């Protein structure tokens, strides 16, 4: 075999090998890219579905908080609501925020604040409850305990009550286990 033929054969072999390597590499790269493209397309569909759900949820009513309310902020608000509903400041004798407790095996914590109001009329108590529920998303008056004051009712012109109100926030706080 002459030198030229040998050279051309070697050159052909080198080109062929290089092309084979490139072809195989590109083939696998293209296959991987197509798989990735399929996954990204699925992700895009999921993203759009998530966006629709997020928009729908945003339009809904808030029923829980994402974090606990600072005690000072809540105290200020309760005093303000009492004032708005005509309950004298000295009638509000106790505001007792409790530490949040998990509600069963759920993703929610319950933050309870107890109020004690002495000698207030029922309409004012109802108004206070309505103001509180309307002013704060997710706040509910979950319990109301009414009792008559110890003084003789016949001595009073209007009907007054001592009341213990329980205000409850729900806080969304999933644990890592539930996630």
């Amino acid at each position, binding site marked *: *075999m*002459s*030198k*030229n*033929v040998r050279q051309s054969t070697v050159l*052909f072999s080198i*080109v*062929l090998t290089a*092309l*084979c390597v*490139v*072809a195989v590499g*590109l*083939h696998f*790269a*293209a296959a991987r*890219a*197509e798989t*990735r*493209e399929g996954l*990204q*397309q699925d*992700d*895009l569909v*999921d*993203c759009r579905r*998530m*966006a629709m*759900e*997020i928009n729908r*949820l945003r339009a*809904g009513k*808030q*029923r*829980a*908080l*994402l974090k606990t309310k600072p005690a000072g902020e809540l105290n200020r608000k309760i005093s303000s609501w009492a004032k708005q509903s005509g309950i004298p400041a000295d009638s509000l004798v106790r505001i007792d925020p409790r530490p949040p407790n998990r*509600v069963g095996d*759920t*993703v*929610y914590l*319950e933050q309870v604040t107890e109020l004690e109001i002495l000698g207030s009329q029922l309409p004012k108590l109802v108004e206070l*409850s*309505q103001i509180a*529920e309307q002013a704060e998303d*997710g706040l*509910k008056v*979950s*319990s*109301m*305990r*009414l*009792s*008559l004051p110890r003084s003789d*009712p016949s001595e009073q012109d209007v009907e007054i009550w001592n009341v213990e109100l*329980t205000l*409850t926030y*729900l806080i*969304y706080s*999933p644990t890592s286990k539930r996630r």
Partner: protein
Amino acid sequence: MKTAANLFLDRTTWDLTLQTSKEVVDVDNGHWDSDRLDVVAQRIAESLDEADARVHHVTILLGASLCLPACFTCESQRQARSAEALGYRLEEAIPLAAEDVLADFQRDGLSVFAVATRRAPMEAWVLALGERGLTIDFVTPEASLAWEYHLGIAKGKQHSAAMWQTNHETQLIEFQDRRPIAWQVLSNEPTELRQHLKVQRLGNQTDDQPILLYQPSKTSDASGLGVVDVDHSTIHVIEGPTLRESATKRLSEIRAGRQRVPFDLTPVTGKQSARGPLRLDLAAFQLAIIVLLGSFVFSAWQQLQRAQSKTDQHVIAQEEVFRELFPESRLPVGVLSRLKSERGKLAGVRGKSEDQVDPISVLPILHRFLSAVPSDMRLRIVSSKIDGEGIDLSGEVREFADADRLAAALRSAGFLVTPPRTSRLPDQGVSFRLEAQLPNEEGNDG
């Protein structure tokens, strides 16, 4: 015309020349025999490499001593058209089996003029040169090129034969209707030559036509032949090319594509084709493989680009979805997982409760209770506890029946009421205690 190599072979000698459109250059020559063909082929390859490394194509031109001419008449047109049938007819005219020769034919109706050569030496030559990277364009008798060239330049001259004389021999080609019908190698000895021509002319019907004798110049020794009448026949001496010059001129025309090879005696070996086309076919095949692989690479590259482009588009679209939802937020690395997280939070904060843990407001319960109490009833509530489950009520009424009436009124309002526990008070009236619960579904719904 590119430079090409001509290898003139005779029974024992070879002569290598390089031919361009302008000149023919002697390169090398020597003797050969079948036993040392490899050595000779190697020398030829090396000589060619030294003379012009670009030349890889060789034409083998066979001398008369390697050729077996024959003229015969076929029995039918079908036989004249069949190469196999002609091969067997050739067997009758030459002392070799059809399998042992390479032959080619020129047909004129049923009349056939054939030239053959031994197969084995030619195959050995082609193989030996092929192994050294030399491609054999074709193998053909040198004389056939010469007489084809002669027929081309002597169109207007009436003649029955042409002769070329060399130092050793005289080649005589007889024609009929400008087609070869006999090819003979004669001695240069004048007496013998005259005798042969005399015999030849007796049997020739075209005896009134002259024989053309090609000689390089008229000053050369034409009288050796005796440029005289030979029993009424005349020999016309033409100052023209030698046999080899005529052959190489015809070769130029063939290489230029203007003429065809008159007698192609090229063998096809098992290892390598002597013909250029197969050599070209191999290159074309290699090129086709490279083009095929190249197109596959291009296609895969396009596929990759397309997939990457689409992937980028999907990623950008995901980012746009996120930016529309959270224009103030920084773009996260994983958009979908972030959206899932946000959706989870929102579902927990604003979605429907799956755990049914929402606190129930007491206000609707209180409203329902107050609406249910009969307006004409005298009732004193001592204490009450209202929560999501219902009302726990303690109070005083005038009569036992009033407690039952209150319970019935609450039942009418949808409460589930336990029978009131009552007891007579020391002074007057009846104390009672009852529990009014909301049905489960209402309590849970708030």
